[in-house]
C-alpha cells in the first residue's frame, strides 16, 4: 500500500513539474493555444473555397459570326473562365499571356460555321502557362466545357435555320436537338460541401498530432541534455512512472487545447458537428494518446533539441503528403499506402471527417487502428526509456 502511495507521490511530482515547467514559459503557451487557433482562423478567413477563374482573352477574326463581346462569353456555362477581352490580334493576346496579364487565351478560327456546313470540324486552340498540375487539369476541363458551349451555339444556330426550311407542324426546339439530354446533379452528403467544412477536421487532426508530438519530443531531450537523468537514475523513480507522468501531464494539456479548438471551430467557424460529441472526444483522446507516443519516440531517439525539432518537422511534412490531408491515400501506389497508417493523423482525419461531417460513429477499424498504434508506441517508448534509465547501470 505504501509502495503504491509512494509511486503516486512520485508521479504526481513529475506531472506537476512538467505542467509547471511548461506553463511558466509564456512563449510555449502562446504557441500551444493561440497557435492552433490562429491557424484555424487564418484558414477560415483566408480560404473561401472558390477557385479564382482564369483571366481569359478570346481571339476572334473580325469576320466571325460568333459574338465579339466579353459578356456573352462570360454568360456561357463555361466555369473557370473570366473573359477580360475579345480581340482579333492573336499576338497581343499571346503577349498578355507571356506577361501574366492573362492566364488563358482561346483562339477561334474564322471559318467555324462554313466548316460545319461543309461537314468539317474546325479547331479551337486554347493556350495557358500553368506549372501546377491541378491548375493544368482545371484549364483542360475548362477548355472542354467551353468547346461544348461553343458547339452548342453553332449547332443551335444551324438547327434553327434547318427548322425554318423544313417548316414542320410541330417543330422540335433547336436547343433540344442541340442538347437532347440535360443533367440534374444531386449530392447526398448531409452537409453543403464547402472547403472550410471539409478541411477543418483534417486541419484539427493535424494540429492535434503536431501539438502532441512537439510537446513530448522536446521534454525528454531536455532531461537527457541537462543531466537531470542522473538524478532520476539515482532516485527510486521508475521509467514507467516517468513515462506515465509525461502522458498524463501533456495529455491533459493537449486535450484542453483540443476542446478549446473544437469549441471555436464549431461555434466561430461554424464547422458542423453532426456526430456525437462523445465519439469525437474518444477520437481526440486516442489521437492525443498516439501523438504523444510518437513525440516521445522522437525524444528517445534524438540527441539534441535541434534534432528533435527536425524530426518533428519531418513527421509534419510526411503527414501533409501521406495522411490524406491533401491527396487521397487511394491515389498512392498500393506499396506506399501502408506508410500512411503509421501516422496517427491518418486515422484522425478519417474519424473526424466521418464524425463531424457525416454524423457517423466513425469507422471502427480506424478507432481500433488508432488505439493499437497508440499502444504500440507506448510499449516502444517504455522499452526505450527503460534503456536510457538503465544504460549507465
Amino acid at each position, binding site marked *: 500500500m505504501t*509502495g503504491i502511495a509512494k509511486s503516486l*507521490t*512520485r508521479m504526481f*511530482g513529475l506531472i506537476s513539474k512538467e505542467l509547471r515547467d511548461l506553463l*511558466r514559459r509564456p512563449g510555449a503557451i502562446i504557441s500551444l493555444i493561440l497557435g492552433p487557433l490562429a491557424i484555424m482562423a487564418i484558414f477560415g478567413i483566408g480560404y473561401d473555397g472558390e477557385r479564382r477563374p482564369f483571366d481569359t482573352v478570346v481571339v476572334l477574326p473580325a469576320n466571325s459570326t460568333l459574338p465579339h463581346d466579353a459578356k456573352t462569353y462570360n454568360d456561357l456555362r463555361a466555369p473557370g473562365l473570366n473573359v477580360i477581352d475579345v480581340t482579333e490580334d492573336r499576338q497581343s493576346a499571346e503577349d498578355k499571356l507571356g506577361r501574366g496579364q492573362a492566364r488563358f487565351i482561346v483562339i477561334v478560327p474564322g471559318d467555324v460555321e462554313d466548316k460545319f456546313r461543309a461537314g468539317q470540324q474546325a479547331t479551337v486552340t486554347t493556350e495557358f502557362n500553368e506549372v501546377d498540375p491541378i491548375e493544368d487539369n482545371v484549364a483542360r476541363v475548362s477548355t472542354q466545357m467551353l468547346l461544348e458551349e461553343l458547339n452548342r451555339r453553332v449547332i443551335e444556330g444551324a438547327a434553327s435555320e434547318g427548322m425554318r426550311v423544313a417548316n414542320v407542324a410541330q417543330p422540335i426546339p433547336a436547343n433540344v436537338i442541340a442538347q437532347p439530354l440535360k443533367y440534374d446533379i444531386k449530392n447526398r452528403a448531409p452537409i453543403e460541401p464547402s472547403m472550410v467544412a471539409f478541411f477543418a477536421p483534417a486541419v484539427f487532426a493535424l494540429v492535434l498530432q503536431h501539438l502532441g508530438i512537439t510537446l513530448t519530443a522536446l521534454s525528454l531531450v531536455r532531461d537527457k541534455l541537462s*543531466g*537531470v537523468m542522473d538524478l532520476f537514475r*539515482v532516485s527510486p*523513480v521508475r521509467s514507467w512512472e516517468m513515462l506515465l507522468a509525461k502522458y498524463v501531464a501533456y495529455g491533459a494539456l493537449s486535450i484542453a487545447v483540443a476542446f478549446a479548438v473544437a469549441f471555436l471551430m464549431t461555434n466561430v467557424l461554424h464547422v458542423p458537428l453532426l456526430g456525437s460529441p462523445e465519439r469525437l472526444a474518444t477520437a481526440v483522446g486516442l489521437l492525443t494518446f498516439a501523438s504523444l507516443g510518437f513525440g516521445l519516440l522522437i525524444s528517445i531517439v534524438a540527441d539534441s533539441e535541434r534534432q528533435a525539432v527536425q524530426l518533428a518537422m519531418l513527421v509534419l511534412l510526411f503527414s501533409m503528403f501521406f495522411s490524406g490531408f491533401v491527396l487521397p491515400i487511394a491515389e498512392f501506389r498500393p506499396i506506399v499506402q501502408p506508410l500512411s497508417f503509421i501516422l496517427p493523423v491518418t486515422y484522425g482525419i478519417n474519424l473526424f471527417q466521418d464524425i463531424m461531417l457525416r454524423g457517423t460513429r466513425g469507422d471502427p477499424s480506424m478507432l481500433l487502428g488508432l488505439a493499437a498504434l497508440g499502444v504500440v508506441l507506448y510499449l516502444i517508448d517504455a522499452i526505450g526509456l527503460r534503456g536510457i534509465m538503465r544504460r549507465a547501470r
Partner: protein
Amino acid sequence: MVQLEDVTCRFGDVVAVKDASLWVGAGTMLGLIGPSGSGKTTMVRMLTGTLRPTSGTIHVLGEQPVRFRRETRERIGYMPQQFHLYPHLTASENVAFCASLFGLFWWRRHTRVKQVLELVQLTEARNRLAKDLSGGQQRRLSLACALVHEPDVIFVDEPTAGLDPILRQTVWDEFRRLREAGKTLFVTTQTVSDAQFCDGVAMLVHGSLVAVGAPDALKREAFGGELIEVRVEGSAQKSVVDRIEGVRSVQQPAKDRLLIVTDDAGVVAPRVTDALNTSGARVLTTDKHEPSFDEVFIELVERSGMGEREEVAS
C-alpha cells in the same frame, strides 16, 4: 556503509579509476580529494549506481549500487557537480519535486522543504525561479534537493566549487552538522584544504588512490613523522641535528632554517634546541610545523610517482 574493493573503471583504453579500495564507516565524512579529471565524478557515479565498474566490487548500505532496491535508493542523497534542476520552477518547487521523487508524502514534504530551505539560507528566495538565483544560491538549492528526504548516505560532488569562502564555510558547517546527526557523507573536492573538515581523506590522482586516512595520519605519512621547524641566528649546522636520537631526517631550506622530521616532536624539540645551543648556534624559535594540506598533497603525489602521468577522464 560504503565499501570499494579493487574497483577499476575503464572507458575504452582510458582508465578512469584504477584498483581503488576504500571503506567509509557509518556517521563519518570522507573527502575525496583530487585535481580536475582525476576520476572523482566517475567514483561518485559508480557509488550511486549510475555507472557499472569494469571490475571490483562496491557495496553501499550493504548492496551493490547497480542493484539498489527502491527502499535503498530512498536512503541515498545525491548532489551532482552541475546544477541541473528546473530553471522555470521556483526554489521551493524544485525541492518539493526532488522530495516527491524520493517518495516523500505531501504532508511531510511541506515541512521538509521549509526546513531545508532554511538550512541552506534560501527561505527568502523560495519563490524565485531557479534560473534567477545566483550561482551560489543554485549550489545551495542543489544541496537542499539532496537533503530534503533525509538520506542516510549523501554523495556530494564538488559542493564548494565556485563558492565564496564564507559560503564554503557554511556548507562545510552543514556537512559537519549532518555527520553529527549520524549521516554518512562522501564529498568530492578539488580544494585540498577542504581535507581539514573531513574525518577521513582519500587522495585520488590520475584514477589511483595515492593515500587514504585521517587528515593527521596523512600528514605524518606524507613527511614520515612530525615536523619541527627551527630558526637560528646566523647559520645552522645540519650535521649537529642529524645525530640526535628520534630525528629521522633533516632538511635545510635556508641557511638559518631547519626542517626536522621526528618520531615525536614534543620529545625531540628540546633535544634539538640543546644540541644547537651547545654547538654555538643561537636558537631563535623551535616550533612544531603543521604542513598545509597543499604541501601534504604535493608530497604524497610526488612520493606515489603519479605526478607526471597523463590526465584521465572523470
